């Protein structure tokens, strides 16, 4: 069953819920042939065998401790292609929420007297530590998008991830806009590719796939405000998944 052309791939996990790895396992329900076109050499959550001769590394989870750096660098040194798998690896996702408070305070709140016992840094996307060739966004990743990404990699290409907003996919589905129903939605500034899944279920987009390139955040904030969301409410919504991106754009002065 092995052939020379089968790429060897490995999955790694850092701070996260392992829901993206679970989505990969679930992809086998519809695409069992995945096992015939790649050779998985490492996937701790699902298998005990362990090989270090991979060429493609999928990394789930955020960088959250100084000790993560060494492991990330070792993966980068080995793999020809490194792919951030899901929002935690891609954007630092929800892990970055704690960056809004001081690390000392967060540790004290949670560990009390033992606060100094554990190694903790600011939560960051893995691209803050190593070069990342591509990302598969989302919390969790979209199963079909993952399968498409693997197909692209097999053909020697990097995955093609949309750079237009969720609203485009939502309109194509002929959904009524949630803003008309007194709800709010981050679709206008969030990267598409999920098929507008949340708005299609009457639930506003939470921004898990990250910002589109050059988003007009000030106009979006105005829209939210016109629909009755308080300033604090807007901040909380934006910073559920996008804390890292918003802080970065504010720091560079192009956020508002």
């Amino acid at each position, binding site marked *: *069953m092995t052939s020379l052309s089968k790429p060897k791939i490995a999955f790694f*996990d*850092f*701070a*996260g*819920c*392992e*829901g*993206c*790895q*679970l*989505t990969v*396992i*679930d992809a*086998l*329900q519809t695409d*069992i042939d995945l*096992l015939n076109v790649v050779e*998985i050499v490492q996937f*701790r*959550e*699902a*298998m*005990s*065998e*362990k090989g270090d001769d991979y060429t493609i590394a999928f990394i789930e*989870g955020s960088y*959250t*401790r100084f000790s*993560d750096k060494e492991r990330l660098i070792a993966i980068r040194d080995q793999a020809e292609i490194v792919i951030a798998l899901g929002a935690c690896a891609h954007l630092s*996702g*929800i*892990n970055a*929420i*704690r960056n809004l*408070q001081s690390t000392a*305070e*967060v*540790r004290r*709140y*949670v*560990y*009390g*007297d*033992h606060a100094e*016992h*554990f190694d*903790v840094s600011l939560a960051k996307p893995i691209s803050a530590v190593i070069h990342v060739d591509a990302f598969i966004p989302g*919390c*969790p990743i979209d199963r079909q998008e993952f399968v498409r990404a693997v197909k692209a990699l097999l053909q020697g290409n990097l995955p093609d991830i949309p750079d237009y907003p969720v609203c485009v996919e939502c309109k194509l589905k002929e959904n009524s806009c949630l803003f008309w129903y007194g709800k709010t939605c981050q679709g206008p500034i969030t990267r598409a590719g999920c098929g507008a*899944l*949340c708005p299609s*279920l*009457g*639930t506003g987009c*939470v921004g898990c796939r990250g910002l589109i390139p050059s988003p007009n955040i000030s106009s979006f904030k105005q829209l939210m405000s016109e629909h009755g969301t308080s300033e*604090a409410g807007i901040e*909380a*919504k934006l910073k*559920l998944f996008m804390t890292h991106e918003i802080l970065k754009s504010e720091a560079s002065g192009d956020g508002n």
Partner: protein
Amino acid sequence: MAIESKETKRIDVHHITRVEGHGNIVVDVQEGVLKQCDLQIVEAPRFFEAMLRGQPYEQASPLSSRICGICAVTHATTSLRATEKALGVEPSEQTTLLRKLNLHGEMLDSHILHIYMLVAPDLLGAGSVIPLARKSPEVVMRALRMKKVAGDLCAVICGRHTHPIAMAVGGFNHFPTSEELSKLLERLEAMRTDLDATVDLFQNLQMPDFERETEYIALSKEDEYSFLDGVITSSDGGSWPVEQYRQVANEHMVVHSTAKHTRHQRPSYMVGALARFKLNYEQLQPKARIAAETLGLDPLSTNPYMNTIAQLVETVHCTEEAILIVTQLLERGIKQEEPVSPVRSSGEGVGACEAPRGTLYHHYVIDDGLITDANCIIPTAQNLANIEADMRALVSQRIHCPPDEITFALEMLVRAYDPCISCSTHILNVRFVL
């Protein structure tokens, strides 16, 4: 226990595989004396309670579902229950039925993953599910088929299993159509064949022989095998309303773990499928009781390895319960209800559900719509002290065995608890302001 051998052994399992999250096993036997036997939790700490602080209450559920990709629905539901109790929200009967159905979907998904993909390779002599797929493709295809039904059930109710979408404080943002429910019913009924085959498969597999009696804790209700709400019940006697969860789950820090440990009346207790099975046996669906008998599991069992078998019994139970709930929903007809609104904007509440791995508690204090204090107590954190107590007893019993054999037995033991290490390192708030 006196150990006569003068052997010296050290076992170091770095990052146990086929479990959720990062844990190490360290055993140190010096001159026949067990010096150290730890399950080290080395998962990155995640600080969910600190992240929940300051969040608008509507965001607590979508945020806390991200504690765990495997039990996301239980986290989301428990979070909603905590918020609803804090803000005086009484969900409708339909909401409760849909939530129970959704929890059954998650229980099926998680148990099938554990039984087939994580545990079965040990019993069938395969390193993992991938060689197993080559060796016994029909076994793996059966698992994937059942798992798809479970995942699709959650998708029909809340959009997807990881992470649920359409669930809200007071109700749902989206409802299944009767067509979707009818299709689901057919598939659940058809799944019975695969479940029978699973019982047949496990009937012939031998679990390691090991008994250690401990305290067992689960949520219970008089009229049903409880997953949503209930009272905390102990095998040592006694029951407590969920608001008194701190009397049961006394959390404490240990230095080798980024997850806190808990203890109740004894140094440790067990939660999860085996605890539920023992405490709520009377409420099991008849088919599940027959499966238990076939599989040689009785409510007096004190073998932690049998937790996997209890999960299989629950898989049968949850399928039967899901069939009943879907039938009931179809008879009632689905109403497009608006979520029930809170009657106040400040308050305090505790939510409790049975997650696949045991009792889960979320406790929130909400002030003017914002969460000011949060505490989440996770099943695996409650089990850690008990796993270590089992590990010590197991190593003491098998101290003369070769290290490889002990290591395999220990890894299987840890895996039997189906630990969810990402969950348990949510870490908790020591200074809870009431």
